[in-house]
C-alpha cells in the first residue's frame, strides 16, 4: 500500500468534530485547572503553617518543657541541590544509598530551594532477620513532641544515639529524637518487649550534608511507600528501591524506561525506572514532561547502601 493510499484511507476514516471548538470552554477548563493546582499548593502551605502554629502553641503551654531538638532549625537548612548545566538533586536514603537526580532546568526549578523540611524518608525494620514481623518507620525533620503528641516519655538506654523517646501505647507508635530528625516506628503490635528491642535496635546518624542514615542493629528494609519523598514548589519527587512498577514502559536512550500517567487529582506523573539497578523515580507536576525534558533526565547512583545491594541481589531479611 503506497503512503498516499494509506493517507487517503486514514483521511476517509478520521472522524470530524460534531461542532466547532467552544474556545471559551477550553479557556475556562484551563483556568480552572490552574486554579485547582494553585489551590492544592495553598492548602498544603496552610497545613504546614497550621502544624507549625500548633507546635508553637504546644511548646508554649507545656508545663514541663524539654528541649529535644539539636542543631539549627531543620526547616531552615536547604538540601544541597546544585544548579549548573542542569539541576542535580541529591537524595540520601536511610540505608545510605545516594542518588543524584539530574533534571533539566525547566523541571528542576520546581524543587530548587527545597529544605529538609520538604523531605520524608520511609522504611521498615524487622524484629530480627528471618522473622516476618516488623514495624514501619517514618523519618522527618522535627520534634517527636509534634509527631507523637501526648505520648509517654521513656528512658533512653545508655549508649543510644537517641536523645529522647516517646511511646503512644494505644496507637502502637514509638517516637525517637535523633538530633533534628524525628523517627516514628509503628506497627500492629508494640509490646513492652518490642519497645525494649526498638529502643536498643534503632539508631540514626546525621550526615555532614544534613541527611540522615540508619545505623541500627534491627534489619532495615523497604516498605510499600516511597523510600524518599521530596515535596517541591511545583514538583514532587518520590524514590523507590524496587523493580519497576510500570505496566508498559517506553525506553529512553539512557537505558531508563518511562511511563506517563494522569493522577486522579489532575496532576501528571512520570514514572522513570532504572531496571538494572532497581530504582524507580516518580515525578509529579502540574503538566506532563515534554519528551526533550525526559531525554535530559538522569539517575546517577553515587553510593549503594546495604538495602539496595540486597534488593539487587534478590535477597530479603
Amino acid at each position, binding site marked *: 500500500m503506497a503512503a498516499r493510499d494509506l*493517507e487517503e*484511507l486514514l483521511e476517509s*476514516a*478520521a472522524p470530524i468534530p460534531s461542532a*466547532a471548538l467552544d474556545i471559551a470552554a477550553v479557556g475556562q477548563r484551563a483556568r480552572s485547572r490552574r486554579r485547582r493546582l494553585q489551590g492544592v499548593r495553598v492548602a498544603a502551605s496552610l497545613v504546614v503553617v497550621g502544624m507549625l502554629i500548633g507546635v508553637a502553641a504546644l511548646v508554649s503551654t507545656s508545663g514541663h518543657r524539654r528541649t529535644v531538638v539539636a542543631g539549627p532549625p531543620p526547616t531552615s537548612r536547604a538540601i544541597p541541590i546544585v544548579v549548573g548545566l542542569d539541576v542535580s538533586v541529591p537524595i540520601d536514603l536511610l540505608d545510605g544509598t545516594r542518588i543524584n537526580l539530574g533534571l533539566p532546568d525547566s523541571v528542576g526549578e520546581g524543587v530548587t530551594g527545597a529544605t529538609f523540611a520538604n523531605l520524608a524518608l520511609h522504611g521498615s525494620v524487622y524484629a530480627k532477620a528471618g522473622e516476618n514481623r516488623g514495624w514501619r518507620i517514618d523519618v522527618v525533620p522535627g520534634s517527636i513532641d509534634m509527631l507523637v503528641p501526648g505520648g509517654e516519655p521513656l528512658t533512653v538506654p545508655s549508649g543510644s544515639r537517641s536523645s529522647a523517646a516517646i511511646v503512644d501505647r494505644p496507637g502502637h507508635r514509638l517516637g525517637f529524637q535523633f538530633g533534628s530528625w524525628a523517627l516514628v516506628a509503628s506497627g500492629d503490635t508494640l509490646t513492652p518487649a518490642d519497645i525494649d528491642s526498638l529502643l536498643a535496635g534503632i539508631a540514626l546518624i546525621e550526615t555532614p550534608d544534613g541527611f540522615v542514615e540508619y545505623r541500627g542493629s534491627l534489619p532495615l528494609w523497604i516498605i510499600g511507600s516511597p523510600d524518599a519523598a521530596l515535596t517541591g514548589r511545583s514538583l514532587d519527587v518520590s524514590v523507590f528501591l524496587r523493580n519497576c512498577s510500570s505496566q508498559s514502559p517506553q525506553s529512553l536512550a539512557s537505558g531508563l524506561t518511562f511511563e506517563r500517567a494522569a493522577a486522579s487529582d489532575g496532576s501528571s506523573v512520570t514514572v522513570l525506572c532504572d531496571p538494572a539497578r532497581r530504582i524507580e523515580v516518580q515525578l509529579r507536576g502540574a503538566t506532563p514532561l515534554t519528551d526533550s525534558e525526559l531525554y535530559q533526565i538522569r539517575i546517577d547512583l553515587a553510593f549503594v547502601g546495604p538495602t539496595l545491594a540486597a534488593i539487587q541481589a534478590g535477597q530479603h531479611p
Partner: protein
Amino acid sequence: MTDESEVAEVCRDLYPRLVGALGLFCGDIDKAEDLAQEALARLWARWTTTRRPDHPMAWCYQVGVNLARSAARRRTIEQRLLRRVVSEPRPVDSAETTIRAAAVNAAILELPIRQRQAVVARHYLGLSVQEAAVAMGCAPGTVTALTHQATARLRQSKLLADPDTYEEAEHGSS
C-alpha cells in the same frame, strides 16, 4: 496579540485534526472530542504560564494518547460520554460512509497501540519521523519500524488492501 488570543487561535487550528487523530487512535468520536479538548486545555494552561511546546500538535496528540491510556481518565470520560449520549444525539452519516469508516477504524484498532500511534502520527497528522519520535519518546528508527509494521499489517487486511472490492461486495449484499 495577547497570549490568550494567540493560544485560542492555535487551539482552533489544531482542534479538527486533533479530533481526527485521536478518533483514529481510540475509535470513538465522543471520546476523541473530549480528549482533544482536555489536551488543548492543558496546552492553554502551559502556554500562558510556562513554556510553549516546540510542536503543539505533536504535544497535544501525545497528551491525548496518554489520557486515553489512563484508566482513571477513561472512567471520567465515560461518565461524561454517558451524559452526552443522553442529551445530544449525533447526526447519522450515510450508510456507505459509516460502513466504510467503521471497517477502516476496526482494522486500525486491531493494530498494537504503539503501531497505531505511529501510523496516525506519520500518515494522518503528517509529522516527520523526527517529530513523531519526539512526541512518542522513542528513537526515530523505532518510529520507522513501527510505521512499517503497521503498514504491513494493514496491507495484509483484505479489507484495506482493496477498498473498492469491499465497497462492491457491501453494495451487492445490501
